[in-house]
């Protein structure tokens, strides 16, 4: 499968099954397009047959000279011979192995507080309550969760625990106690905990900052960007905006971590489709690591992303990509999570085939110890999988999640981006289609554009 596109003046050809990315001139771009139209399953042999050159002469003879077409065809043949173009799908056969593999639990999202000191309008957790009641996780429940993780992690050395909410700083002592417990247990069991925390920053202070810097591998700092954008969606319960209180704390924390191992993470809605301005605002505030996500909401929500918003969103991603290239070249670069792509050291095929891991490798734990496939399913009783006392009591839910992959979804099979998103978010699929075995189509459109932009940035920076 070949995907080719033009972006910011670059002609890019992605050979999906090898992952090879080629930047080509107009001639070669047109030649590949014609050949791919002729036969999507071209091989070195079929490319050397007279029909291949004939169709190029027929379709492109008026635009390019015969010698040029021969040269470009030779390049295409060479790439095909070395497994970098027209590569056949060798991975579908691996999918049975991936589906049947014995998975272990390696990551937990601990809902340390189902309570929040903000009242964000778009909160999928309903201001921290998750279709339930306000609650804080006790130390005892948290301990059992860590014990469950260690006991179910097989040979995995690195274990991840995210302190999530609601707002986890509202139950800070328990976080500290659980980190201490984890550090003690990791020595006994030869494990390594990577702790992370996701916070709105309201309660952030020097003492917490010091602990976070000592113990947390990553910190996610929630902020939506420009003051007016942030304060419209992220007010306190009394309606007052949170920007002025939070931004200086986040700046201080990011600096204290040497601008590494954190993300300032925002949400954009249809009320700020010019969200590149919010990313640039983060950069202007001095942040170097950032992410901004499309809102997850019901279609009836006034701020929800609609299909008609897609052209504006696509344009905004391209605009952001161009500005990021300029800034990088000017020595003022920053990372945007969704434009980060590792073309050489990226994840292995098994990872790309197996999806996000929710329901199998990754579970969410509620304050009272219930287990769900991920934080987005918490409170939806049909997804209750067990609890920290009894472990997984409904393995059939894990089996269902394990069976979900890029080859089990028709829409993913034909998508060029399948090995970059790994099939997308199952919670989003469920929210829009009532099943995890589908895709959130608007999200897919945005994901494809982000992958295209990420690759284009690589092309631009490779030019020097």
């Amino acid at each position, binding site marked *: 499968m070949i995907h080719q596109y033009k972006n910011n003046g670059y002609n890019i050809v992605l050979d999906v099954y090898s992952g090879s990315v080629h930047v*080509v001139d107009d001639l070669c771009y047109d030649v590949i397009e014609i050949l791919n139209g002729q036969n999507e399953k071209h091989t070195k042999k079929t490319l050397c047959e007279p029909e291949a050159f004939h169709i190029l002469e027929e379709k492109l003879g008026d635009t390019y000279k015969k010698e040029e077409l021969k040269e470009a065809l030779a390049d295409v043949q060479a790439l095909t011979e070395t497994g970098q173009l027209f590569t056949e799908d060798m991975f579908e056969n691996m999918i049975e192995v991936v589906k049947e593999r014995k998975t272990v639990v*390696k990551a937990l999202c601990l809902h340390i507080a189902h309570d929040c000191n903000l009242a964000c309008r778009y909160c999928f957790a309903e201001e921290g309550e998750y279709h339930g009641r306000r609650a804080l996780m006790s130390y005892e429940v948290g301990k059992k969760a860590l014990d469950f993780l260690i006991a179910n992690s097989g040979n995995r050395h690195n274990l991840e625990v995210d302190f999530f909410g609601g707002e986890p700083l509202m139950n800070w002592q328990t976080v500290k106690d659980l980190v201490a417990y984890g550090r003690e247990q990791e020595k006994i069991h030869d494990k390594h905990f*990577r702790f992370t925390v996701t916070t709105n920053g309201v309660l952030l202070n020097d003492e917490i900052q010091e602990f976070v810097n000592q113990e947390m591998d990553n910190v996610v700092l929630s902020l939506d960007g420009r003051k007016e954008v942030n304060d419209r969606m992220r007010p306190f319960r009394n309606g007052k905006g949170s920007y002025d209180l939070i931004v200086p704390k986040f700046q201080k924390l990011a600096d204290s971590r040497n601008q590494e191992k954190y993300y300032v993470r925002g949400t954009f809605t249809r009320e700020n489709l010019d969200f590149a301005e919010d990313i640039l605002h983060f950069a202007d505030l001095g942040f170097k690591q950032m992410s901004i996500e499309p809102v997850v909401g019901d279609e009836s929500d006034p701020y929800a992303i609609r299909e008609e918003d897609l052209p504006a969103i696509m344009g905004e991603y391209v605009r952001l990509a161009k500005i990021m290239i300029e800034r990088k070249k000017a020595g003022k670069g920053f990372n945007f999570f969704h434009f980060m792509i590792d073309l050489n050291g990226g994840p292995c095929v098994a990872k790309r085939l197996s*999806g996000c891991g929710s329901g199998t490798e990754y579970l969410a734990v509620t304050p009272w110890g219930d287990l769900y496939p991920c934080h987005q399913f918490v409170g939806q009783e049909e997804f209750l999988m067990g609890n920290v006392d009894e472990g997984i009591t409904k393995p059939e839910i894990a089996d269902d999640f394990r069976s979900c992959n890029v080859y089990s979804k028709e829409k993913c099979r034909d998508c060029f981006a399948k090995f970059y998103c790994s099939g997308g978010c199952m919670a989003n699929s469920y929210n829009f289609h009532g099943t995890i075995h589908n895709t959130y189509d608007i999200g897919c459109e945005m994901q494809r554009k982000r992958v295209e932009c990420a690759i284009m940035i690589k*092309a631009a920076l490779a030019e020097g």
Partner: protein
Amino acid sequence: MKHVKTLNTQTLNNTVKKSGCGECQTSCQSACKTSCTVGNQTCEQKK
């Protein structure tokens, strides 16, 4: 090659052999929490 510049040296097929150790980060745990992005992650064995 006169008409082509290839950006990567590795192909996906190269990763099959040492595939699936599972030590890498869980996909959505790191930053997004609302979508799934895998392609931007780094293999733990190559760190």
